[in-house]
């Protein structure tokens, strides 16, 4: 493992910002830590970088404990959330900074700066002042600066946080492509699940300083470890249920679950795609009133209010089948889109 954290703990006052975190990142792997603000993900990066000492546990790089290694000797790169370009240096000066600190020669510096500016798509920006750069350009320069000294591990703190949506979506693809080509090992943190899933080989979800779930994007998406992860990923249909065999008893009535699901008192996730609308009002199933509908391109997202006390349901359906608000519909559940959580 290139990076491993073993029981890493950081406390601020009485509160643990990192609480016995175990995490491993293999060479050439892109790991994305996902979590709401305050979940400890930035502290995690700072602990790895050596900007924040751990109070317990260990940070190991290439198997070596880093407790006594100061930040500037760890050989990792960190791209800050708001870039932190040095205002008194031009673009080339910023990119060359890490190389200079490692004592690289002038020619080597110039060559590498040219190479990296080319790579991030700013080939002629070397002499520009950092104050004249747009947000996207600053982000690219910050990336070039972090990459220049060839860090064994590159860390990104909310790499695309401040950019607008379209730029973000484009850059995520570019970044993944770039890291793949360079073979860079990356540890990124973000609060945006879309960004995480698009970028990462592996996603680590954090909650209150602990790792809530770790796995490939697909695994996490398909099997959220618990109600928190499910809700954080944007799923709303999460309820308590009693599972017996392939049937769960829920506030929405009896719901089918896949075979082999955990038994007993559980949290149950029904993906919106698992909520099927029965044709017409007489189609049977759970009777719901359409409370709201939102167009999402080819699909329509519906909010359904079941009769009685049961919580609202989120559903999707194709545009042409969409019922109007106020209509009453019958709802059936698809076991394939239902997961029993831990």
């Amino acid at each position, binding site marked *: 493992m290139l990076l491993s954290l073993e029981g890493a703990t*950081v*406390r*601020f*006052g009485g509160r643990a910002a990192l609480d016995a975190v175990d995490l491993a990142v293999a060479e050439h792997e892109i790991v994305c830590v996902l979590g709401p603000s305050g979940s400890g993900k930035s502290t995690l990066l700072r602990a790895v*970088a*050596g*900007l*924040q*000492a751990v*109070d317990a546990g260990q940070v190991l790089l290439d198997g070596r404990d880093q407790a006594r290694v*100061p*930040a*500037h*000797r*760890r*050989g*990792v*790169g*960190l791209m*800050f959330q*708001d870039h*932190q370009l*040095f*205002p*008194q240096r031009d673009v080339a000066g910023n990119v060359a*900074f*890490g190389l200079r*600190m*490692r004592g690289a020669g002038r020619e080597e510096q110039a060559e590498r700066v040219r190479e990296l500016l080319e790579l991030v798509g700013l080939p002629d920006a070397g002499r520009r002042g950092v104050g004249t750069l747009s947000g996207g350009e600053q982000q690219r320069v910050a990336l070039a*600066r*972090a990459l220049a*000294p060839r860090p064994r591990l590159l860390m990104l703190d909310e790499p695309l946080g401040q950019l607008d949506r379209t730029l973000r979506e484009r850059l995520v693809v570019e970044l993944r492509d770039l890291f793949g080509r360079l073979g860079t090992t990356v540890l990124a943190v973000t609060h945006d699940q879309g960004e995480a899933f698009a970028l990462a080989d592996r996603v680590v979800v954090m909650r209150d300083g602990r790792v809530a779930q770790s796995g490939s994007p697909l695994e996490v998406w398909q099997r959220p470890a618990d109600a928190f992860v499910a809700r954080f990923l944007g799923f709303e249909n999460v309820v308590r249920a009693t599972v017996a065999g392939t049937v769960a008893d829920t506030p929405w009535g009896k719901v089918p679950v896949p075979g082999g699901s955990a038994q007993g008192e559980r949290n149950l996730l029904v993906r919106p795609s698992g909520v099927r609308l029965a044709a017409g009002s007489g189609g049977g199933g759970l009777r719901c009133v359409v409370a709201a509908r939102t167009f999402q391109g080819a699909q329509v997202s519906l909010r359904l209010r079941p009769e009685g006390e049961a919580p609202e349901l989120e559903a999707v359906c194709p545009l042409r089948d969409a019922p109007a608000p106020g209509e009453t519909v019958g709802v059936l559940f698809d076991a394939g889109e239902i997961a029993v959580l831990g």
Partner: protein
Amino acid sequence: MTATSTRSGLRGDAARLGLMAVPVAFFAVFFAHPVVAIVLRGLRGEDGAWRLAEAARTLGRPEVREVLWFTLWQALASTALTLVVALPAAYVFARLRFPGRELLRAVVTVPFVLPTVVAGAAFLAVVGRSGLFDELWGVRLDGTVGAVLLAHVFVNFAVVVRTVGGLWAQLDPGQEEAARMLGASRFTAWRTVTLPALGPAVAAAALMIFLFTFTSFGIVQVLGGPGVSTLETEIYRRTADLLDLTTAAVLSLVQFAAVGGVLAVHAWTVRRREATLRLVDPATTARPPRGAGQRLLLGGVLLVTAVLIVLPPAVLVQRSFSAGLGYYRALAEEDGAAFLVAPVEAVWNSLEYAVAATAIALVIGGLAAAALARRDAGRWVRGFDALLMLPLGVSAVTVGFGFLIALDEPPLDLRSTWILVPLAQALVGVPFVVRTMLPVLRAVDHRLREAAAVLGASPWRVWREVDLPMVRRALLIAAGFAFAVSLGEFGATVFIARPDNPTLPVAVAKLIGRPGDLNYGQAMALSVILMVVCAAALLVLERLRGDRTGEF
């Protein structure tokens, strides 16, 4: 983010202690120790028995009460007079555009960095014996309160023009216009919009002036007669002339308390001043004078500035040349009249002392500012911030005497070494260094340092690559201030400078105190040299500073 009971917390404390250790040790050894020693000596007497009853009685003595009362009222009068004279000037320099404005604004700042003794000499040349006014109309003011008050206005004029005027120039005129559109008269608009915005700046300037005039020494010593005595000159007289250490100690404590109070109020107004104001580029707010009123105001301010600010130094220069180059040549002659060395030696002494004092002040002040600027600076560190200001107000004379009795034992027997004078001068230089550096250091984003560290910069490289480029200008400005202040320091130096190594202000004061045209002329010539050095230092500062308003 307060880290407690953690390894990171301990590491932060260690780093802070490391930075603070040298300034704390410096102030403990070279400020607290001497001051406490001389005060205790006064309160305890030779035998070690406390003389508190006698000390308390001191305050009831009529001549002591008179000094207290005089110190207070002359400081209040000086402050009020300065505000009356300088506020219109602040407006004119801020809002009216006229030829020579920039030059004049630089000129009015010169008196502030002028050593007080030189300011005194300049006024002596105008209102003293055979001064300009004496020759023209037979008017003499030397030895009177009037001369002291005028000299105080002369020195502190720039404080108002710069702090109040600097803000005034940046206030958005649109605010006043908005009030006018809502039906306010021109005066009402000014009263309800501009005045409240300026209020805290005026208060801060007034407090600084009060502080400077309350502790005035050089000016009172040169211009005041035997009956004109402030706390500071009285402490000097009680100690140097009468050896009445008890009264001197009590007076020192009174001054200490008063200055502490003023500093506390000042800190409060500074915080108030940070209230959000709409500030604009000063270049856009100035207009050529319009109408008879504004022209009259401009004319009046120019006249007052000419008479009060420009005339005294001009007469000083003229007097120094009244024997051709004779007085300057006499400075190089070792006639032994006033000194053991030729007066011109004092120039070199002063420059060398000032350079050494500046170096000390930069090291101590720089370390203190670096410690104070750390984001994890705790409460006690911020308390130290306030303490650093104290040397500005604590009786310099007390510090000087304290040096003499406290720094006399190995390993600190510095009394016979030349370093004693720069050490005393550095004490007053440090507050200026800290005040100048601190805001700049605080403005450096801490994550920039982290960015550099992650890119492989060691702590020392971080300081060199990130902090230094950003504070270089501030460092130079701080050095300039420390240099000017050290060069002009008089209160502490007058007693500890050795007779064979006088400094410029001490030499000037001594020459002024001696009769005869030659001594007088030499005093004027030395003052001119001192003035030129200070003005040159100021000019460099101005170029470095640009037109940002600072605390000083």
